[in-house]
């Protein structure tokens, strides 16, 4: 029982991090109808940026966020302009899956050149601190990570609901045609939307780097999870991404604690398949055919 509750606590805390990564992924899908295979690599890139700023300049990963977020936003816009905008319209959904996968490989290659394949981790002074609450261990860094994820998600929510840009984004998510008629510049929104989605990888990467060791190849593990989460929540729905992250993290943490860690990965996928059989559009999705 103790292990089970501990598992649930861990699952909820981890869910925050995944929700943050997945919200960026979902946003990109919503704006561009692009399944972004590069989001995992972006998160790892974010982790390396935080790592480098911490290792060479001693800037705490939390304090470095404005810098890393700005850089990641720039990377996102650049990728969109260079590789995604030129894609032909009639085939965009299939081609963009491949193009973003190639971008992921490209980023992996660049990271390998700069940082080698050695495992890195961001080891702040408080990384190993923990509290015991009613007999359950809660590590400080996990709690911080969880809170940061909530703050970042909140900011994202504000941007989408309280700014002009956010309204333009939401308009094009809901109905691209009428958005265009209302004077929303689709190209600009797409570039900025991709940038914003990528920018969430800065915060997610900082948190990820404090929790787990990472290397340039770590994005393969991440991307399948992220895709499962957004698919579960429903493509294009940020609220859905949060719920998807929660369902998947908690269920796999519980399986790891109650059954065995070797089956916990599988939980992800079984939950996902079950949901898709019952409801092919995901829990909160608005569209069946992703790449219409």
């Amino acid at each position, binding site marked *: 029982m103790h292990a089970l509750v501990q598992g649930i606590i861990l699952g909820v805390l981890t869910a925050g991090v995944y929700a943050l990564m997945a919200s960026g992924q979902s946003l990109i899908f919503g704006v561009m109808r692009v399944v972004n295979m590069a989001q995992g690599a972006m998160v790892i890139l974010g982790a390396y940026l935080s790592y480098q700023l911490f290792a060479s300049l001693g800037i705490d990963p939390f304090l470095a966020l404005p810098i890393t977020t700005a850089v990641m936003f720039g990377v996102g816009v650049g990728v969109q302009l260079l590789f995604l905008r030129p894609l032909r319209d009639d085939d965009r959904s299939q081609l963009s899956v491949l193009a973003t996968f190639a971008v992921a490989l490209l980023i992996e290659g660049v990271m390998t050149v700069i940082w080698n394949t050695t495992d890195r981790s961001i080891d702040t002074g408080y990384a190993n601190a923990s509290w015991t609450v009613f007999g359950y261990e809660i590590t400080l860094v996990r709690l911080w990570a969880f809170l940061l994820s909530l703050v970042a998600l909140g900011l994202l929510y504000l941007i989408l609901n309280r700014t002009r840009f956010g309204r333009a984004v939401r308009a094009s998510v809901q109905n691209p045609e009428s958005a265009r008629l209302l004077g929303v510049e689709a190209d600009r929104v797409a570039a900025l939307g991709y940038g914003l989605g990528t920018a969430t990888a800065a915060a997610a990467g900082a948190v990820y780097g404090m929790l787990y060791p990472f290397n340039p190849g770590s994005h393969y593990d991440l991307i399948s999870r992220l895709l499962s989460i957004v698919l579960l929540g429903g493509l294009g729905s940020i609220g859905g991404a949060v719920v998807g992250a929660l369902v998947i993290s908690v269920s796999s943490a519980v399986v*790891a604690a109650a059954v065995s860690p070797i089956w916990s990965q599988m939980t992800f996928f079984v939950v996902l398949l079950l949901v898709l059989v019952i409801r092919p559009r995901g829990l909160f999705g608005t569209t069946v055919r992703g790449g219409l």
Partner: protein
Amino acid sequence: MSKHNRLWHRSLTATVAALLAVGCASGGGSNGGGSTGPLVIGASVSLTGDFSDSGKAVQHGYQLWANMVNASGGILGRQIRLDIVDDASSPTQVVTNYQNLINKDHVDLTFGPFSTLLTIPASQVAKRYGYAFLAPAGGGPAVFQPNLHNFFFVQPAPTVQSGDVLVKYLLSLPADQRPTTAAYAELDDPFSAPLAEEIRQKLEAAGVRTVYKQVYPSETMDLSPIMGAIAALHPDLIVGGTQNEDSYNQVKSLVQLKYSPKFLFQSNGANSPLEFPDQVGAANTEGIMAPADWYPGSKATGSAAFTAAYIKAYGGTAQSVDDSSAEAYAVGQVLSEVANKTHKIDNDTIISTLHSGTWPTLLGNLSWSANGAPNGEFNLVQWQGGKLLPVYPPSIAQAKPEAPKPNWGG
């Protein structure tokens, strides 16, 4: 569909021409034949992909040996030339690479790649063409199954048995100091879990009670649930069948959980002299044990010369030498000794000679069974005062084993 025939014909013709050209070229160019030309040794190592860091360490070891041999006049008067290619950690590429090395570049000898996962397909190719195959890494149990006569694993013992030294040490302790309970956290890969299982079976037979055992897959990023369950049971001994990342994670989790067992052994990761203290914090390393074949300050044959050459070439200190480089270097040492003993250097001689006798290397004295499995034993090393020191067996120990392990933070 049928309107682009001309291009199609042209590309087909070009492809065929290219293939034929390539095929013919291979018939001609040979560089290995003469006994006065350079001795060309081919090896495929992982310079990119999952195993690339260790792959590079292996390459360093080969290169250091070749440089030293060449500086002293070569083998039987022949200079060594290494032909090292990259397999990108892929089993398909490794087959292509050894095919190419043997049949296209006509190398005289082959050395092995880095991982067990690549060693098997590669050693089969070498066997087909009668090449001796000396592998410095990748000694999982499956490697010895095919009973290849040409295969030699150049380490003191098969990887699965590298934890046996821990069992010997623990059983050498007076009964009241031995652990009575043990927990096992094992990574699901070809060596780590089997290695820990071997320790478990031997310790259970000796009366050490197993209170917990868990196998976890390599993608497990979070080991805190497992370590939490272990900490709650308060075992005297924790055995980690670990690789790298998971070794650091296990220790970090235990530190966070504030549980320090009397004995903590990790099959890998903890024996990495630079990365381990960097990842878990130097103060937390004290008392942690690991197996090792080579260790800084080893007195084995050629170790001092190797260490000096390594530091000269790649900088750092003896503590920062990668043991994968030492293992690769040992492959070269074995080859040099075969040449010294038989005054010949060809695959048949190497294969027939190495199946008998013992061969002194910087990893200690090596000898092999018929299937290429080495017959020796690993050493036990322990972190003491921020350094990895050999502590068991007593014949090579540079310090007394520290037991029980002190609390976290030194």
